[in-house]
Structures are given as C-alpha cells and as structure tokens.
C-alpha cells in the first residue's frame, strides 16, 4: 500500500480525519473525541496494523494544547502521525490510548507531568518527574523567576 492508498484507506475508517501529506510522514489531524476509536482501528485492522507507538509528544502551540503520536507498522514499515488539539487550556483532556499501545502509559504520565494534559481512563495518572506542587514547565506561559533567565 503506497501513501495515497493509505490515505484513502484511513479516510474510510474515519471520515472526519484531515489527512495531510507532509515532507516526512503522513499527518492525520483527528478531532479529540475520535482519537481512541481511530487508534483502535489503526492498530487492529490487519491491512495496516499500526502496532508500534514510538513517540508521544505533548506540545503547547500557544493558543492550543496538543498531543502528537508517531505510529509505525512493524509489518508494513509505514509511519503516520496522529495529531489532536484542544483550545481548553484550563482543563485539557484527551482519551488515553494506553490500552491500545501499552507504551503510552509512561508517555502520557510524562505529558501530564510537564504539560498538565489529562488522559481519561489512564490506569495510573500521577506526576512522574516533578513534585505535586510544581507548575507545568513545558507550557509557554510557565514562569520560574528563579531558574529561567529571560533576556
């Protein structure tokens, strides 16, 4: 399956996905509520079987908060990038994908710790690196007068 066929195939799985062909990978912009269902289909459909989540990144885009999932198929050697966004900075939350790809459990805890994004149905969502009273340092509006010197 080449990139064009793959895009068409994914369009059939979820019609609300916005598929973009970027330089390196195929990008799928998914509405937050569809994330879990699409992830499950991507993994379990035998024709694509994206079974290896190799990178999960939380990003602060300024207005929005988002999560980027890099997923590869070990069978077909293809890679897609899932992206979700939310404009709710006070209480950002997405569905956890930890029961689809188990590696997400640690990654999501890290994202929660550093960006304050909550993951619904995560088995054990606690802070990982930092003490409980600390802010969320990877947010762009995080202020730490003591340790961050701004010019």
């Amino acid at each position: 399956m080449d990139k064009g066929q793959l895009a068409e195939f994914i369009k059939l799985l979820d019609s609300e996905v916005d598929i973009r062909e970027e330089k390196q990978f195929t990008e799928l912009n998914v509405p937050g509520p569809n994330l879990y269902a699409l992830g499950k289909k991507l993994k379990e459909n035998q024709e694509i079987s994206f079974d290896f989540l190799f990178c999960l990144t939380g990003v602060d885009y300024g207005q929005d908060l988002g999560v980027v999932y890099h997923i590869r198929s070990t069978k077909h050697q293809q890679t897609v990038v899932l992206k979700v966004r939310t404009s709710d900075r006070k209480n950002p939350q997405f569905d956890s994908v930890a029961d689809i790809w188990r590696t997400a459990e640690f990654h999501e805890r890290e994202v929660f710790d550093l960006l304050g994004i909550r993951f619904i149905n995560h088995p054990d969502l606690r802070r990982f690196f930092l003490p409980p009273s600390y802010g969320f340092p990877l947010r762009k509006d995080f202020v730490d007068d003591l340790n961050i010197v701004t010019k």
Partner: protein
Amino acid sequence: MEETMKEITGEDQKYVINMGPQHPSTHGVLRLVVSLKGEIVRNVEPHIGYVHRGMEKMCESITYPQIIHLTDRMDYLSAHINNEAVCLNVEKALEIDIPDRVRVIRTIMSELTRIQSHQLWWASFGMDLGGLTCFFYGLRDREKIMDIFEETCGGRLIVSYNCPGGLMYDIHPNFQKRTKDFIKYFRKILPEYDQLLTGNVIFKERTRGIGRLSLEDAISYGVTGPSGRASGFSCDVRKHDPYSAYDRVNFREVLFNDGDTYHRYLARIEEMKESMNIIDQLIDNIPEGPFAVKMKPVIKLPEGEYYQRVETARGELGVFIISDGNKNPYRVKFRSPSFVNLSVLNLISKDFKIADLVAIAGSLDFVIPDIDR
C-alpha cells in the same frame, strides 16, 4: 499449623520495600517500590525524576549547536550517537549534503561507542549477579576505546565530536591504527567473556527463563534495542532506516526468539561482534575530503516538524524538533530508549524472586539520566 507457617514466612502478607534511590544495582538514582509476597515480586513501581534537568525546556532557549552538548548528558554511554541524532536532524532540515568522510567516521565512532557501552554493561551486569571479576575485565578493555576517543575527540566519556555539518575536527593520525589494534585485541579477548559468564552454570541458572518478554508485549510496550531484538522484534534502525554509512556495510541484525534475560545478554554479546565487523569494513576505506561543510554562523531551521531516529546502544533514540523558523527550536522531544524500556519492568518481573529483579533490571540496561532527561 499451616497458618502459623504462613505467618512466619510472611506468605499471606504483602511487604512493600524500597529499592533505591541509592542502590548498587539500580546503576544510579532510580527508586523501585517493590511489593513482595514472601520473596515473590508482585508489583514493581518505578519512581523517577531524581536527575530530571528539564532538558526539553532548556532546549527551547538555546541554539541548535548548543543542544548537541546537552544530549551528551542524556545517555552518557552513547554520547556520540546522541550527538549524531541531533546533527542528522538539523542537516536533514537544512537539506545539507554531508561529505562521505564524515559519514564513515561517524559510523565508525558510533560502533566504537556501542562496543564500549556494551562492555560497561557486561561488566556491571556480571557484578550485579555476583561475579566481580567481570567488572575488571570489562573496564580494562573499555579503557582502550576511551583512549581512542580521547586522542581524537578530546573527551573520553562526553565526546561532543559532532557538529551540524560534520565533525568538530579531523581524526587523529593514529586513529586508524589504534582502532585496528583494538579490534584485533578484542577479537582475541572476547572468548574470555564467554568463559567467564556465558558458559557459567550459575549464571545460566540465574538468567535462563527469567523475565520472559513476548514479541507482542515488546512491540506494544515499545521495547527496542538489544532487549527488543532478544524477543524477536526486528527494530534495528540501522537496517530499517539507514543513516550515515550504514547503507554500505554488511551486517546481521541480531535476533532471538526467547526474550528472557539470558537472550538479552546474548544479543549484546553478538552485537559487539557485529559492530567489529562494521568497523572492519570501513576503517581502511575512510574517503579523503573535508571533515565538515561550512555552515552559517547562526543556524535557523525552516518552519516545520522534523523527526530523526538513530540506534543507540540501548535502542531507538528519536529527536523530534518543531521549529518556528527562529534560531531556537519551538519544542524538542527526546524519545529516549531507557525511559520506554523501563515501562516493561513491572510486566516481566512479576512472579519472580526479588533476586531475579536485579538480573532483569540489569538486562534491560538503563541509564538513569536517559530516563529522566
């Protein structure tokens, strides 16, 4: 009577003990909270963050050449390969063609790094299991690679030899000779490693069938590197997504199917041999040419997202850069192999004895600053 016995042996109780943060077999400041029933491990919960330096946040306020020197401090045993990951990503984003000489030297240095990392791992793994001799043997041989690094890069552990566009300086005139001497020496000495540990009956008893990781779990938990390949997960970035000069050398991807502690051990021993084969093919064929291309004094990546993965001694290291066109990156994420491999510890050490936990944790080969970043 039976109940009294249970009370004495503590079989019906659950102990919770702390292993670490200061414990010789956690190799750094990793704290494992272990729930035990008698001597059997029921649950392992890692507590990390003791050396968290906020590297991803620091990267947002520094330039790309400066990031390279930070990545040394992540997985300090694969320092050169970490540098390479950032350099390759920057070069890919700027679409710079790198001289052949640089590609070959980077590959040789990466493989030397891999050998010395596995040597240190072998040394400390033997020590974890009670064989102190290994430690001296491993470090004795590793010192020779450190000397080669020192001569060429100036640094022994933290080399910082790469820069965007090539290398900091050319190789030392002695580099080829000393590397060849080392390979010759290490080929001769490697059977000693096998005599000390691989064939040792006590060692086999303590590692065979312990901490078995299935292929499905390895993929689902994202366990890469020798630990993943011991379970049959074909995840060698050097094969699947060749970078530098890996597309022009012949080597075997070391794969096993058992996935227990013993095979994770064997995978690393075999990898050392493969690394030596790679160096053999390249060391006499280093092309002439410049050791770096001239870069602009201020490096600005075009707007966009860039992902580069490389194979470190521990597994797949990913560097994900989001650039907004400035001289500082907008967001940098390091997908570090130790962090991901740690997540599988609870799964595979369940229902084994606490002494086996030390063997299993040792065979996964963590570097704590790589977990915490």
